[in-house]
C-alpha cells in the first residue's frame, strides 16, 4: 500500500492523526497532514483505510 497526502486540499481536521498516529501527523504551524511513512506495514493498512474514509477533505488516498 502506498499513501499519498495532498496538503493543499487538507483542512487540518486531524482525523488522520487521531486514527493512525503512527502514520499521520500534523504540521506544527499549518496543521496540515504530514506523512510519517508512505508505505505502512501491513498491520496498519486497515486503520489507514479507515483514516482515508474519515478524512473530510479527501486529502489522503491509497493505492
Amino acid at each position, binding site marked *: 500500500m502506498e499513501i499519498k497526502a495532498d496538503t493543499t486540499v487538507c483542512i487540518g481536521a486531524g482525523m488522520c492523526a487521531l486514527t493512525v498516529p503512527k502514520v499521520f501527523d*500534523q504540521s506544527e504551524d499549518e496543521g496540515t497532514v504530514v506523512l510519517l511513512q508512505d508505505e505502512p506495514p501491513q498491520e496498519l493498512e486497515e486503520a489507514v483505510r479507515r483514516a482515508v474514509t474519515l478524512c473530510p477533505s479527501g486529502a489522503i488516498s491509497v493505492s
Partner: protein
Amino acid sequence: MSELTLPTARQRPLDPPDEVTALRQQGTIHRMTYADGHQGWLVTGHAAARAVLASPYFSNRPEHMHPPIPSARMELATQPEKLRVPPGFFLRMDPPDHTRFRRLLTGQFTVRRMKMLEPRIEEITGACLDAMEAAGPPVDLVQEFALPIPSLVICELLGVPYGERAQFQADTKVLASLESKADDAIAALGSISAYLYGLVQRKRKEPGDDLLSGLIESGELSDEDLTGVGVLLLIAGHETTANMLGLGTYALLTNPDQLAAMRDDPSVVDNGVEELLRHLTIIHLGPMRSALEDVEIEGVTIKAGETVSIHLPAVNRDPARFDDAERLDVTRPAGGHLTFGHGIHQCLGQQLARAEMRIAYPALLRRFPGLRLAVTPEEVPMRSDMSIYGVHRLPVTW
C-alpha cells in the same frame, strides 16, 4: 408542490422525529418545502449527506440559503445584510475566502496541541467539580459543569477574560434561540461583535499568550476580520460542547448500564464519546448547503440555486452505515458519524471538543458515583427551541 416541511417535534427526547426516520426508510433525498415556499431538499441518508458536504458544487454562503423553518433566527441566518455578519465569520464562506481563514487557524487546533491542553482541561474540570460538590445537592448540572468547563477552556484559549462572560453568554443565547425576535437577534450579534472588536483593540495594546493575540501578531487579518473569527470561535466553543456535556449526562443517567461502562472502564471512554456524539447529534436543524450548479446526488438532480438541508440526527442513525443504529452503545466504534460535519467546513474545534469530553465525563462520574436525576426524566426541559439541541437545565443529586 411538495407537501413535506421540516418535522421538528420529537416524540422521544433523544431520538430524531419519527417522521424523519420514516422518510429515511423510504429513501435518502426528499423534496421539501422551505419556510419561504422554496422547493428544496431534505437529506436523510449518511452516504448522500457525505456526498453533499464533500462536494465543491455546494455553497455555504447565507445569501444562497432559504430558511428551513419559520423562525426569525432562521430567516435572518439567510439574510446577511440584515444580520451584518462580521467579515471574518468564515463558517459561512466558500473557497477561496474560507480557505484563507481556515489555514490561519488549523495549526492552533491540531491533535498534538489539544493533547498539550489536557492537563489544563483536567484542572478546570476538577475545579468545577469541587465547586459543584461545595454547592451541595441538588444542583443544575448545566450551570455547574456542562457550561463552565467548555466556556473556561475556550475563553482561556482565545484570550477572553472569563469574568466578562455574562454579556456574551446572554448574547449567544439570544442568537441560538429559534424563538428570538429579529430585532433582538440583530442587537445580540451587534453586542457580541462590539465586545470582540473592543477586545481586539485591547490586545493590540497588551498582547497575551493566547490565540487572538497570536492572530493579531501574524498581521494577516484586519480588526474586522479578527472580530468575526473571535465571534465564531467564542460562540462555537461555548454552545456545542456545553450541550454535549449536558445532554450526554442526561443520556447516561437514563441509561445506567451505559453510564457504568463509561465510569468504570477507561478503555471505553474514547468510543463512548464518539457514540454519544453520534447518538445525540446536537446539531438538529442542519447543516444546509445550496447548489451552485446542477449536481447529481444518488441519482437525484439538485438544480443550481436549490437549498439542501441535511438531517444529521437521522443521518447518524442510518442503518446502512451503523449496525443497530438506534441503540446507544458506548462500546461500539462510532467513528464516521457526521456530527462534526464533513468536507471543508468540518468542525475546526473537534479535537478540542473530544479532549474536553474525554476528560469531563469520567471525571464527573467518578467524583459522584451515586449521581442521579433530581427530577423525573420527563421533567428535564429539552432545547427543542434552540439551534443546538440539549437540555436547558439538568437537576441532579448524589
